[in-house]
C-alpha cells in the first residue's frame, strides 16, 4: 500500500520542472564552435545593443528601432530572410564585452569602438565599421568654454566601460591639466549629469552626444566642442574564433553599402531586377551563381535592401535630416562622395 506522500509527489514535480527548465533554457549544439550553427538551431540571432533613441531604443510599443537595430535586422535577413528573427538585449557599456565573451550574444551592435587591445588582448573580432565617429565634449554654452583645454579643473561626466573613459584620462594627462571625473554606468543617468549641472561637460562619442543633445529640453543651450579627442570607429563585435560568422557579418554590412553605391533602394529595387549589368545581376541573385558559390541564399543582398534598406536609407531613416536628430553624414558618406564607406566587390 504505497500511498504517495506529499513530499515525494512534490519532489517528483520538482524534478520534472527542473528537466523542463533544462530543456527550455539549454539548447545543446552538436559542435558548439560555430556561432552560425547555434543561431540556426535557435532560430534567432541574439544581439547586444545599448539604449539611445536614434541608435537603439524600444518605441512606445516595445519594438526596437534605430540605426544599429537595422543592421541587426539585416543580419537576420541574411541568415533567415526574416528581419524579425533577431532579439535585442540592452546591455550597459560596462557589461557588454564580458557578456559577449560569456556567450550571451552572437554579436554586439552597441556602438563598440574597434581597438587593438579589444582585438588581441580581449580576443574580439570586428566586422566592417558601420559608423565613423570621434570622441567629443558636450558643454553648456553659458560656461563660456570654446575648446577642450579650457576645461582645466572642470567636472566631466564619463561613461564607465567606454573608450571615452580611457581617452579623457589620456587627454588631460597629455595636456598636463586636471579634471574631476563623474563616472556613470547608467546610460539614462548620463545626460542628467550635464542637465542638472552635476558635471560641466560630458565626454563620449560625438554621435552619442549629438543624440543626447537632440533629446535635451533646450538643445540650443548646449554645444559640442569642435575637437575630436580620438577616432571612434564603431563596428559589430563578435567572439574570437568564428570565421564563418565574421564573413556573414562583413558581407551583410557591405551589401547595404554596395546597394547605396549603385543607387538601389528598397523602393526601386525591383526595377533593377531587369538590369543588364552582370554585377548587379549577381548582387541581386538574378544570376544565382554567386550565392551558390558562397553558400548563402543567392538573393540575400536583394532581401536585405528590400526588407531593411541600403546604408543611406538606414542612416536617413534613423539619424538623417528628416528626423529630429538631423545628423550630417560626415565621414559616413560613400567613398565616391568623399566619405569612408567602401565595399569590396561582390564577385
Amino acid at each position, binding site marked *: 500500500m504505497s500511498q504517495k506522500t506529499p513530499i515525494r509527489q512534490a519532489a517528483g514535480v520538482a524534478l520534472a520542472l527542473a528537466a523542463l527548465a533544462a530543456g527550455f533554457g539549454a539548447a545543446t549544439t552538436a559542435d558548439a564552435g560555430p556561432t552560425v550553427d547555434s543561431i540556426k538551431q535557435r532560430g534567432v540571432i541574439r544581439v547586444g545593443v545599448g539604449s539611445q533613441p536614434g541608435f537603439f531604443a524600444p518605441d512606445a510599443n516595445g519594438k526596437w528601432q534605430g540605426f544599429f537595430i537595422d543592421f541587426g535586422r539585416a543580419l537576420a535577413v541574411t541568415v533567415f530572410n526574416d528581419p524579425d528573427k533577431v532579439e535585442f538585449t540592452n546591455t550597459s557599456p560596462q557589461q557588454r*564585452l564580458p557578456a559577449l565573451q*560569456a556567450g550571451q550574444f552572437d554579436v554586439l551592435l552597441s556602438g563598440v569602438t574597434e581597438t587593438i587591445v579589444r582585438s588581441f588582448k580581449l580576443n574580439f573580432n570586428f566586422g566592417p565599421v558601420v559608423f565613423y565617429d570621434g570622441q567629443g565634449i558636450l558643454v553648456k554654452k553659458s560656461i563660456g568654454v570654446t575648446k577642450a583645454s579650457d576645461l*582645466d579643473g572642470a567636472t566631466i561626466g564619463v561613461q564607465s566601460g567606454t573608450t571615452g573613459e580611457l581617452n579623457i*584620462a589620456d587627454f588631460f594627462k597629455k595636456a598636463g591639466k586636471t579634471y574631476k571625473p563623474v563616472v556613470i554606468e547608467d546610460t539614462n543617468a548620463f545626460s542628467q549629469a550635464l542637465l542638472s549641472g552635476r558635471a560641466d561637460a560630458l565626454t563620449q562619442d560625438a554621435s552619442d552626444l549629438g543624440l543626447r543633445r537632440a533629446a535635451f529640453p533646450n538643445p540650443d543651450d548646449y554645444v559640442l566642442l569642435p575637437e575630436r579627442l580620438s577616432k571612434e570607429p564603431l563596428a559589430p563585435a563578435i567572439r574570437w574564433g568564428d570565421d564563418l560568422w565574421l564573413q556573414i557579418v562583413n558581407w551583410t554590412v557591405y551589401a547595404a553599402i554596395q546597394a547605396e553605391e549603385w543607387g538601389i533602394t528598397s523602393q526601386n529595387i525591383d526595377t533593377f531586377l531587369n538590369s543588364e549589368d552582370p554585377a548587379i545581376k549577381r548582387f541581386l541573385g538574378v544570376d544565382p551563381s554567386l550565392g551558390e558559390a558562397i553558400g548563402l541564399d543567392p538573393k540575400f543582398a536583394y532581401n536585405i535592401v528590400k526588407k531593411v534598406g541600403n546604408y543611406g536609407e538606414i542612416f536617413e531613416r534613423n539619424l538623417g535630416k528628416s528626423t529630429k536628430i538631423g545628423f550630417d553624414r560626415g565621414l559616413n558618406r560613400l567613398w565616391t562622395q568623399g566619405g569612408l564607406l567602401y565595399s569590396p566587390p561582390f564577385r
Partner: protein
Amino acid sequence: MTDASALPPPAGETRLAALARWWGPHPLAQAIGLAAAAAALALLASNVLTSMARVGMEPSLDYLTQPANFDISESLIVYRAGDSYARAILVGLLNTLKLAISGCALATILGVSLGLLRSAGNPLLARLVDAYVEVARNTPLVLQLFFWIALTRTLPPVRQALEPLPHAYLSVRGVYLPWLTVEGGAIWPALAFLALLAWGVHRVRRRLGRPLSLTEWGLAAAAAILVPAGWIAADGVRFAASLPQLKGFNIVGGVSLTPEFAAMLVGLSVYYAATIAEIVRSGLQSVTRGQWEAGRALGLRRTRILQLVVLPQAMRVITPLMTSTWLDLTKDTTLGVLIGFTEVTAVIKTSANNTGNAVETILVLVVVFLAISLPVSAAINAYNRRLARRGLVTS
C-alpha cells in the same frame, strides 16, 4: 574518513571516537556524497576553464599589477589614472567601507530614535513613524536610491550654491564644509596616545574598584594635554583651516561629500532605519510586562527600569538582528553601481571590461565580500549559541 586517520595515533583513540561521533551515522554514504559534490564542483570549474580557452582567454591575476588607465570619481587615498588595478580596487574597497561604516552609524541612530519615538506616547507621532516604516519597507530600495539621486540633481548649480551656514555650501556637486588640515607632520601618534590613555584610565578605575580622586584625574588630564602638545611641537605639526570656495569650475578646499555618496548614505540609512526601528520595537516588546512591574515594585523610575531591567534583556533579541542588518546594509552598498557611486563592485566591473579577465575579477569580488561577511556571521552564531547555552533564548 581520511581526515580521522590523518590524526596522530597517541591521542588518536579518543579524538577518533569524538570525530566519529561528530561525523555521525552513515559515515560512508556521507563521505561518498561529499566527494561526489566536490567532484561536481571541480568539473564545473574545469568547464569554466575550457570555455575560457575556447574564446582565447587564460585565467590570470597578472592584471592586478598592470596600470589602470581610468579615473575614479572619489578616493580616500591618492589615485591617478595609470596606477595599478590593485590600487584601483583598493580605492573602491575603501569607498565601500566608508559608505558601509557611516551608513550603519547613521541608520542605527535614526532607527533607534524612530523606534523610541514610536513608543513615546503620542499617537499621531506613532502613526507618522508607522507610515514612514511602511513606505520605506514596502518599496524597492533601488527605487528609493533612484529617488534620492534624482533629488540631489535638483539642487542649485555650483555657482548658485546654497550657503546655509557660513562657509558651508550645498550644490548639485555635493556638500562642502570647512575642515582642519594637518601639515608638516603626522598627527596620528598623538591620537594613538590619547586612545591608549583613555583605555589605561578605564582599566585603573576598574582595578581600584572606586571612583578616581581629583588628583588622579588631574594627572590624567595633564598627560592628555601635555604629551600630544609636546609631540605636535616636536614634530612640527601645523594646523590650518581649509575653507571651501568657488574657484574655476568647482568649489575647492574644505571637506566634501559627493552627491552620489550622499544619496547612497541617505538612501541606505532611511531604508535600514525603518528595519532597525522595527527591531527595536520587537526587542522592547519581547520583555514581558512582569519585568516592568517588578522594577516598579522595587521603586525604580521608568528610565531606570528601562536602563537596568528592560534594555539588557531586549538587547538579547536586538543584538543579533541588528548585526545582521548591518551586514545587509554593507552588502547593499553594491547598489552604488546603479547611481554612480564608485564602490568596489564598480571598479571591479570596469577592470573586467578593460582587461577581459571577467571570471577572475568577479571571483575577487566574491572573496572580498566573503571576507567581510563570514566573520560577522560567525560572531552572530557564536553569540546566539552562548545565549542558548545559558538558556536565555529558546532558538
